[in-house]
């Protein structure tokens, strides 16, 4: 008798006991005398069900979760018998939360063994690269442009145009840099794909190298992601062994190789020019643009720098999917976006879907409201630099332009939900405090403005000259927004101003306290 089970090695699953469950399963198997094969996959993204364990059956993989070590023996027996169990969820692929998604970038995440390049190849891996090699530069650029893909890091710049600029700039050396410095709170899609399907990122970067004539790549991963660093390093080695990285990529005349570089805890290094400075070994100070990295990037050479999710979208697009990709979405936001639903939610996790769902559908319907059961009061979209949305704006469709029109941004698509116990003046203060901690210090509006912002919001919270101090905060925000060099200082006003605008009652500290008494 034998059995094959799938247990995630994703950090979110490990953080809630996946490793211990794997050990417990092995012990049960030994006791029962059954040959057990455990495949450590990525996560399917249903984080409230983690650790979610799946067993291979003739009808497909059957999922159980959230599992605990105490459940290991009964789960094992139910899996062997293909019988009932209180934690049995059903056929994994048929689970409603997964069925409602359009998984293009994340189709293999949680499914395949992220340590096995053969498993990746068996799930359409490297088909995109092989087609790219036959297309050459113009064909690749044409496909990427046609797909409508925009940079998934947050800025939303068209990827095809960026690549074309680098392709047309001649130099003795060009670079591909992958920004895996995913520092925004509420975002974890980069981490999940690096841990769950690292080869798709490598393949995307390799295609970029072939397209623009770059032979070297770096993936800059934040040090807070030790599991992703291990996964990427292992995958790079495997890709090298299989001939997909090195002097002759996939047997072609193209050379491309890459390595992992580890960040050192500076949030601002997620800003692309600061990241390049850091890669070069300096303080992560933001560079003024122009010159664009596409002209003078890493070590002054033409550089494609894109987010993990942008590169991860490329293999599908190059595997004949450009048109299909562009047919998803709304307006100028084409394709799919891996939403990351987090904070105080019942059903948190990764949900990849075409652009266009409303914020209300995402929060009420997909996330199922709060896990505390209290009403949703505010939703921060786009990380620490994103605006707080009240329920009144829940009809906003998830689309770059629609969010911008309402003084927000979708950023890296992190969605953090707060219930009605949140104090929005405290959140506004935190936004300023975070900017003060993480400011690189190069430009004055960000460096000084954030510190003055904390002090002024503290005065407001104490009830000192509230109206006058709110005017000071608004003025500071204006200066930061228009006077900062990069998005850290420039976007910190989004959470602050949205909190002030949509939740003014939280800034009238004295009356609110009196009302509560």
């Amino acid at each position, binding site marked *: 008798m034998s059995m094959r089970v799938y247990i995630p090695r994703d950090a979110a699953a490990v*953080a809630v006991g996946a490793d211990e469950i794997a050990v417990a399963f092995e012990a049960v198997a030994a006791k029962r005398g059954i040959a057990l094969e455990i495949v450590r996959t990525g996560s399917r993204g249903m984080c409230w069900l983690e650790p979610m364990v799946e067993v291979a059956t003739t009808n497909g993989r059957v999922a159980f979760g959230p599992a605990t070590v105490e459940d290991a023996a009964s789960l094992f027996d139910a899996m062997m018998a293909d019988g009932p169990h209180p934690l049995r969820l059903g056929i994994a692929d048929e689970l409603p939360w997964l069925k409602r998604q359009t998984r293009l970038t994340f189709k293999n995440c949680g499914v395949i063994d992220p340590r096995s390049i053969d498993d990746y190849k068996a799930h359409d891996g490297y088909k995109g690269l092989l087609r790219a090699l036959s297309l050459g530069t113009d064909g690749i650029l044409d496909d990427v442009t046609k797909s409508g893909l925009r940079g998934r890091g947050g800025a939303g710049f068209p990827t095809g145009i960026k690549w074309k600029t680098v392709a047309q700039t001649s130099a003795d050396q060009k670079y591909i840099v992958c920004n895996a410095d*995913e520092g925004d709170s509420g975002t974890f899609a980069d981490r999940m794909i690096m841990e769950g399907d690292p080869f798709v990122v490598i393949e995307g970067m390799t295609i970029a190298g072939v397209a623009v004539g770059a032979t070297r790549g770096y993936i800059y991963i934040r040090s807070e992601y030790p599991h992703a660093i291990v996964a990427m390093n292992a995958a790079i080695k495997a890709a090298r062994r299989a001939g997909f990285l090195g002097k002759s990529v996939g047997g072609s005349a193209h050379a491309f190789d890459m390595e992992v570089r580890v960040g050192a*805890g500076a949030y601002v290094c997620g800003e692309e020019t600061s990241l390049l400075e850091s890669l070069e070994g300096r303080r992560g100070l933001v560079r003024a643009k122009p010159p664009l990295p596409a002209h003078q990037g890493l070590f002054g050479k033409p550089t494609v720098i894109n987010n993990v999710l942008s590169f991860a979208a490329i293999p599908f697009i190059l595997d004949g999917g450009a048109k299909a990709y562009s047919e998803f979405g709304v307006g100028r936001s084409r394709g799919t976006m891996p939403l*990351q639903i987090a904070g105080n939610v019942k059903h948190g996790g990764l949900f990849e879907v075409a652009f266009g769902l409303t914020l209300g559908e995402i929060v009420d319907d997909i996330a199922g409201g709060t896990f505390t059961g209290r009403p949703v009061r505010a939703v921060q979209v786009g990380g620490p630099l994103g605006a707080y949305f009240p329920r009144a704006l829940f009809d906003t469709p998830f689309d770059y332009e629609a969010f911008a029109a309402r003084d927000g941004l979708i950023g890296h698509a992190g969605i953090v939900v707060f219930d009605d116990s949140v104090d929005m003046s405290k959140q506004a203060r935190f936004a300023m405090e975070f900017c003060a901690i993480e400011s690189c210090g190069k430009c004055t509006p960000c460096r000084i403005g954030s510190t003055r912002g904390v002090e002024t919001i503290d005065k407001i919270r104490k009830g000192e000259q509230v109206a006058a101090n709110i005017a000071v905060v608004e003025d500071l925000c204006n200066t930061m927004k228009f006077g900062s060099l990069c998005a850290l200082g420039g976007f910190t006003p989004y959470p602050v101003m949205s909190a002030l605008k949509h939740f003014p009652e939280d800034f009238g500290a004295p009356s609110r306290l009196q009302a509560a008494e």
Partner: protein
Amino acid sequence: MAAYEPWSAPKALQIIDELKSLEGPALPILHAMQEAFGYVPEPAIPMIAEALTLSRAEVHGVVTFYHDFRSEPAGKRVLKLCRAEACQAAGGDALAARAEAALGIPIGHTTADGRVTFEPIYCLGLCATAPSAMLDGRVVGRLNESRLDALVTEAKQ
């Protein structure tokens, strides 16, 4: 819990020699120093500066820019608690206060007996299983009072 070796100039030189031919070697060298010694010892700075033809001030500037690099050894165990928005939304503020009380130090400090360094971290990317923490290299999610207490007790041992 990592066991670090005491400062040794030959070891530092060896690290520098192994890594200095990389493109942009400064961060890899500093990470390797910290991995070996648990912090970036002061005498390493002029050595790195000389090898990379930088000024001491430039290397000092890099070390002090990044939150990760320590100028002195940390406690035996390092407990990092996520203080970012997703964890705040899930009750992280109260847990931070509870851990501070249990350890008897404000966040960002080391206990007087040198056992535990308690630090804030801004996002472990475990935002859908929040609140989250990391004890040395091990991640822990879905923290509540009892899970946090167990983690603090483990750190103090």
